[in-house]
C-alpha cells in the first residue's frame, strides 16, 4: 500500500496562524489587563502567552502531520483530522477544476497551493486544498489533468505526454503549460480600462452625491428655519443644531471622498488582481493564469465548459467592449473572484475569440429579435418601478418630484432592452441575450441545458408572446438565462429543440424524421 503524502511542512504555519487568529482578542486582553489589579506579573503574562503559542504550534504540527493525500489508480485519497479521523476518496474523473495559486508568503517558501473542485464546495470555500512544493504541485497537477474525464479514454500519445514531467522553469511561473498555445493575453492598459469601466467607480460617485443631496433635504425637513436662525444672530450661529449639521455634513463629505477614492482603488485592485491575464489552450484544457501578488492558474477541462457569457456595462457598451465569462464548476467561486474568461476586449473580437477558445460556441450566431408588438411591453415593464418610486416621494419629500426623471430613464432602458433581447440556436448551442443598460449574452451548450421554461401571463397569451428561461449548470445552483416577450411559436420551437437535443443519440436519429420541422 502506498503511503500518504503530507503537505509541504511550511503549511503548518498556515494552520498555526489560522488558529492564532481566533485567539488574538483573549490573548491581547490578558496581556493588557493582567487580571484584577494587575495581579498577574508581567513575567507570568509572557510565559502564559509563550506557552499558549507553543501549544497552538504543537497542535498545528500534529494537524499537519495527520493531513495527507495519495494518488492511486484514478483515485485521490484524502486523510485529515487529529481526534476524529476523516478519509475521503475522490475519483479523479469527477474533478472539474484544477487551480494553482501562490500567495506572497507561499512564494517566499517556494510552495504552491493546489485547489481542486468537484462541485461539492460550500460557499466560498475551496473543496480540496493541498500545499506542496512548487515542483511537486506541478507533478500532481499533470497527473490529475491526465486522468480521463467521465466517459472518455486517454489516447496512447496523450498518456505518454502526460508522463513526461516538466522541469521547473526559472521565471516565476505556476504550472507548466505543455503543448499549450497562447490564445489571448490582456495588456495592463486594457486591464486598467476594464477596472475603470467596471461599475465600481460609477457606484462610488453616485453613492456620494445621493448622500449629500439627502443630507440637505433632511436638514430642511427637520429644521426648516435653520437658515433664518443662522442669519438672525451670533448666538444662534453657534447653536447646537448648527454644529450638529456641520459635523454631519463633514462626515458625509468624508464618506463621499472615501467612496471616490475607494472606487479608484478598486480599479487599481482590479489591475493587480488580474495582472498578466493570459489564456493558453491545450487539446483538452483551457489554462487561465493571472495575478500580480497572488498568482493563480486554473485548468478548465474544455468538455466541461457548457456556458459562456458576454457581459457589457453601460460604459463598456459606449466603448463597444465587453468581458467574457465562463461557467465551470469550481472556477471563480472564491472570495473576490469572478468567472472571467477575458476581462476586457472589443465586442467584435470577443465573438471571434469565443469560437477559438471553446469549440462549438459560435459567437457570430445570428439572433432573432422579439416582434415589434412586444416593444410597448418592455416600456411598461421598465416604467413600473420609477412610477412606484416617484408617486410617494413626490408627496413626501420636497425634491421628490425629481424622481420623475427616473421615468424617461426607465423608458430608455426599456427601449434598449427591447433592442438588446434576442435568441438563437445552432447544432451545438442555444444563445439568449437580454438586459437594458447592463446586458448579458449567454451561450449554453445543448448538453448544459438542465431545464427550459416558458412563462406567460394572460396579456402575453392573448398577444401570443412568451418569455423563456433556460436553466444551466454552473458554480452554484439556480443559474438561468432568460429572454422576455418573444414570439410564442419561437419559444415553442426552442422547447422542442431542447426536448430533441436531450435525447440520447440512438433515439435522436429516430426522432429526427418525425421532428424535422426543427431545422
Amino acid at each position, binding site marked *: 500500500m502506498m503511503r500518504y503524502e503530507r503537505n509541504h511542512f511550511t503549511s503548518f504555519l498556515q494552520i498555526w496562524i489560522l488558529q492564532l487568529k481566533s485567539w488574538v482578542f483573549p490573548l491581547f486582553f490578558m496581556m493588557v489587563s493582567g487580571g484584577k489589579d494587575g495581579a498577574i506579573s508581567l513575567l507570568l503574562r509572557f510565559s502564559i502567552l509563550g506557552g499558549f503559542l507553543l501549544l497552538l504550534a504543537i497542535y498545528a504540527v500534529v494537524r499537519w502531520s495527520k493531513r495527507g493525500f495519495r494518488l492511486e489508480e484514478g483515485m485521490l485519497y484524502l486523510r485529515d483530522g487529529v481526534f476524529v479521523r476523516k478519509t475521503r476518496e475522490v475519483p479523479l474523473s469527477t474533478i472539474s477544476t484544477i487551480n494553482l495559486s501562490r500567495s506572497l508568503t507561499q512564494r517566499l517558501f517556494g510552495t504552491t497551493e493546489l485547489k481542486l473542485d468537484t462541485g461539492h464546495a460550500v460557499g466560498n470555500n475551496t473543496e480540496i486544498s493541498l500545499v506542496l512544493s512548487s515542483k511537486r504541485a506541478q507533478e500532481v497537477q499533470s497527473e490529475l489533468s491526465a486522468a480521463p474525464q467521465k466517459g472518455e479514454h486517454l489516447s496512447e500519445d496523450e498518456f505518454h505526454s502526460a508522463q513526461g514531467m516538466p522541469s521547473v522553469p526559472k521565471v516565476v511561473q505556476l504550472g507548466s503549460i505543455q503543448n499549450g498555445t497562447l490564445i489571448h493575453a490582456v495588456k495592463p492598459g486594457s486591464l486598467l480600462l476594464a477596472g475603470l469601466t467596471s461599475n465600481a467607480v460609477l457606484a462610488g460617485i453616485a453613492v456620494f452625491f445621493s448622500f449629500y443631496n439627502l443630507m440637505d433635504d433632511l436638514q430642511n425637513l427637520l429644521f426648516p428655519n435653520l437658515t433664518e436662525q443662522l442669519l438672525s444672530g451670533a448666538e444662534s450661529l453657534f447653536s447646537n443644531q448648527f454644529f450638529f449639521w456641520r459635523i454631519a455634513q463633514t462626515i458625509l463629505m468624508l464618506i463621499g471622498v472615501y467612496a471616490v477614492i475607494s472606487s479608484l482603488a478598486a480599479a487599481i485592485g482590479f489591475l493587480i488582481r488580474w495582472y498578466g491575464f493570459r489564456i493558453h489552450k491545450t487539446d483538452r484544457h483551457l489554462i487561465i493564469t493571472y495575478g500580480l501578488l497572488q498568482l493563480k492558474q486554473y485548468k478548465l477541462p474544455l468538455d466541461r465548459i457548457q456556458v459562456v457569457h458576454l457581459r457589457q456595462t453601460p460604459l463598456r457598451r459606449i466603448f463597444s467592449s465587453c468581458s467574457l465569462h465562463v461557467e465551470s464548476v469550481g472556477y471563480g467561486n472564491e472570495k473576490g473572484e469572478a468567472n472571467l474568461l477575458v476581462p476586457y476586449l472589443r465586442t467584435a473580437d470577443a465573438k471571434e475569440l469565443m469560437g477559438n477558445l471553446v469549440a462549438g460556441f459560435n459567437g457570430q450566431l445570428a439572433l432573432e429579435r422579439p416582434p415589434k408588438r412586444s416593444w410597448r411591453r418592455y416600456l411598461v415593464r421598465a416604467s413600473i418601478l420609477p412610477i412606484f418610486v416617484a408617486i410617494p416621494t413626490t408627496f413626501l419629500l420636497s425634491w421628490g418630484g425629481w424622481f420623475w426623471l427616473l421615468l424617461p430613464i426607465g423608458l430608455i432602458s426599456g427601449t434598449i432592452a427591447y433592442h438588446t433581447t434576442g435568441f438563437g440556436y445552432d447544432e451545438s448551442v442555444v444563445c439568449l441575450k437580454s438586459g437594458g443598460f447592463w446586458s448579458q449574452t449567454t451561450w449554453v451548450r445543448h448538453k448544459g441545458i438542465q431545464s427550459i421554461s416558458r*412563462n406567460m401571463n394572460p396579456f402575453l397569451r392573448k398577444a401570443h408572446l412568451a418569455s423563456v428561461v433556460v436553466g444551466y449548470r454552473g458554480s452554484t445552483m439556480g443559474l*438561468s438565462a432568460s429572454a422576455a416577450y418573444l414570439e410564442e411559436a419561437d419559444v415553442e420551437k426552442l422547447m422542442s429543440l431542447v*426536448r430533441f437535443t*436531450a435525447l440520447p443519440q440512438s433515439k435522436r436519429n429516430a426522432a429526427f424524421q418525425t421532428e424535422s420541422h426543427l431545422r
Partner: protein
Amino acid sequence: MNSYEKLHPLAKKLWVIHGIIAAVIVLGSAVAAGFLFKFWWQVLPAAILSIYWVFLWPAWEMAQWRYLVTTEQVETIHGIFFRTHTVIPINRIQHMDIRQGPLQKKFELAKLTVYTAASVHQIPALSMDIAEQITAELGKAILTEEP
C-alpha cells in the same frame, strides 16, 4: 404523443383543508385583535384571503395544473396568472424525492420533487402509487440512458 395528466382529484380536498387551517389562524387572529384593540378593519382583508384560500385557489390550482412524464422528459404546466411550462430532459435529472406530510399521508398523496444541477421542480399532489411508479420508471430510464 402522451397527453398531459391532471393532479390527483383528492389534491383539491387536501388544499381546501390547508386553506381552512390557514383561514382559521388568520381570521381568528384578526377577530381576536379586533376584540383587543376595538379596531375591526383588518377583518375584511383576512376574510377575503380566507375565501380565496378555501374556495378559489384550490379549484383554480386543480383546474390548471398539468404534468407529463415520459421516458425522455418530465414536463409541468402550472400557474394561475403567470403560466409556466417547464421541460426537464430526464438525462439531466440528478435525483428525485417523494415527500408526504401528515395530511398527505392520510389521503395517500405525495409530492414529487425533481432535482437537476441547476434547479428544483415539483409536482405537488400525486397518488403515492403513481409517484412511486414514476420514480421507479425514471430511475430505470436514467440508468439505461447514455450521457
